[in-house]
């Protein structure tokens, strides 16, 4: 029984306990997760120019190119950024590029090992130290970016296990950032893609050499990155939507038509279903909230 019997439906709706909204959001997200888990179906994705630019930048490099990947995120953002990191490593593996992984975020270090193990762990053609290396974490933010620009071994004297760079075959000939063929940053904030543009890949810091740069970033950070595309950056993966588009491009290259794509290479595409229902619920809630608002205003004016 309501404690306000004469109250209209909209007025009661306006006072709805926010836990009902929490429950609706939980159902809107959990339902599609279960549906995708059971059916394995995902929505089709069409790549936007920024995502296509990122794909093409890695694709056009000759086989065996040197790719520096900076894992500048932590587990809090892994839900949005891990599929990007997996997609980039998967794409580099398909193109047989040499992968140099590093991070400027202390909690990002274990994510490097997990991603490399997940994607190329069972590939016999990828040998540690020859085809891929985990350089781990280095403190210093922009300082490290500037240092790798002039003296890479000084910034990273060892790999994550403490092995000196001189004993790692694929590090021979790497003296500065411009020795790499492309830089990829997967970032959740500071320091991240924006700082790499300002302190890393600027031609004044790379001895006039134009180092291709591709970044993946969270939805919140993406608007700050768009001004750098397409001049300073070859491509951007914006939020889980960008990751899903990139996955679809990489998977189209990796698998024959009709072949099943492993779930680990569809993580972003699988997350687009809960995203769809979450966004739709938000739009619905805003609409209902405004209907209540205008009804209340009209009633107030009439009184």
């Amino acid at each position, binding site marked *: 029984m309501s404690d306000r019997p004469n109250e209209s439906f909209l007025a009661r709706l306006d006072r709805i306990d*926010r836990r009902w*909204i*929490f429950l*609706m*959001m*939980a159902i809107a997200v959990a339902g599609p997760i279960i549906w995708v888990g059971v059916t394995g179906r995902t*929505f*089709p994705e*069409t790549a*936007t120019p920024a995502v296509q630019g990122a794909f093409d930048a890695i694709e056009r490099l000759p086989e065996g190119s040197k790719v520096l990947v900076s894992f500048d995120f*932590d*587990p*809090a*953002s*892994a*839900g949005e950024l891990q599929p990007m990191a997996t997609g980039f490593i998967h794409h580099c593996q398909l193109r047989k590029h040499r992968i140099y992984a590093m991070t400027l975020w*202390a*909690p990002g270090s*274990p994510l490097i*090992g997990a991603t490399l*193990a997940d994607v190329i762990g069972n590939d016999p053609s990828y040998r540690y130290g020859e085809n891929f290396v985990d350089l781990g974490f*280095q*403190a*210093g*933010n922009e*300082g*490290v970016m*500037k*240092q790798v620009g*002039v*003296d890479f071994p*000084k*910034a990273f004297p060892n790999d*994550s*296990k403490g092995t000196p760079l001189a004993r790692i075959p694929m590090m021979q000939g790497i003296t500065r950032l411009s020795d790499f063929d492309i830089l990829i940053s997967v970032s959740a904030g500071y320091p991240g893609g924006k700082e790499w543009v300002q302190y890393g890949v600027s031609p*004044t810091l790379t001895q006039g050499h134009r180092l291709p740069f591709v970044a993946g970033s969270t939805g919140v950070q*993406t*608007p*700050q990155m*768009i*001004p750098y595309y397409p001049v300073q950056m070859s491509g951007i993966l*914006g*939020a889980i*939507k960008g990751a899903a588009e990139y996955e679809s491009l990489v998977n189209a290259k990796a698998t024959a038509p009709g072949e099943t794509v492993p779930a680990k290479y569809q993580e972003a595409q699988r997350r*687009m279903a809960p*995203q*769809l229902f*979450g*966004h*739709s*619920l*938000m*739009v619905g*809630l*805003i609409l*209902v*909230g*405004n209907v209540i*608002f*205008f009804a209340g205003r009209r009633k107030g004016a009439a009184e």
Partner: protein
Amino acid sequence: MGRNAAAVLASIVGLVMVLTAFARPLEFLGTAVVDWFNVLAAIAFVLGGANLLKMNLLKISARDAGWGYSAVTVCVFLVTIGVGLLKIGAHPDPLHPDVALSGDKEAVGGAFWWLYEYAMSPITSTLFALLAFYVASAAFRAFRAKNTAAILLLGTAFIVLLGRVYVGVLLTSWIPADNAWVSWLRLENLSGIIMGVFNNAGTRAMMIGIAIGIAATSLKILVGLDRSYLGSSD
């Protein structure tokens, strides 16, 4: 005297950093300063840890509100440091099996890995995910079309929210995608236009404004007009 000396030192270091960007022979000075910066950044981790301990221990000893949370913070902090330093549960390095603490602390199966995988990772992910619930509740209660600016904001939000998911594609799929005169009206294209044109213009303006502000502030510090970074003279 002390403040003057600090201001002069800051000016000299700042000028050196500016000059290294233009004079190649001075590049080594810039590299040296970056080295110092990186060493200081590493020391900042120690200072940060010490500060965390100090603040929380003070709160516990004073029995301030929420001191129990501080106790949990201190315990977890010390356990994590201990587990990492002592490499508890880490397998010895195959190349140096006889050397104590030669193993990788982050290797799968170790106690540090366990803390990261089963404590830090789920806790931080959960906290981040909670945003969805609070944003939904806030959208229902506060996102009202009260004036023209709010209506524009609402319209933009609808287009971007729907244009970034497949429902946007479905809603406007009847608009021909191959007709350049009307295809921009499809929600996914409208969303791209909002992000790439309107949002981009605003972001660029802010970035340029911030950059000019930083340059002006830096100039004031270099010539000694702004000494607020030295703190109070008391």
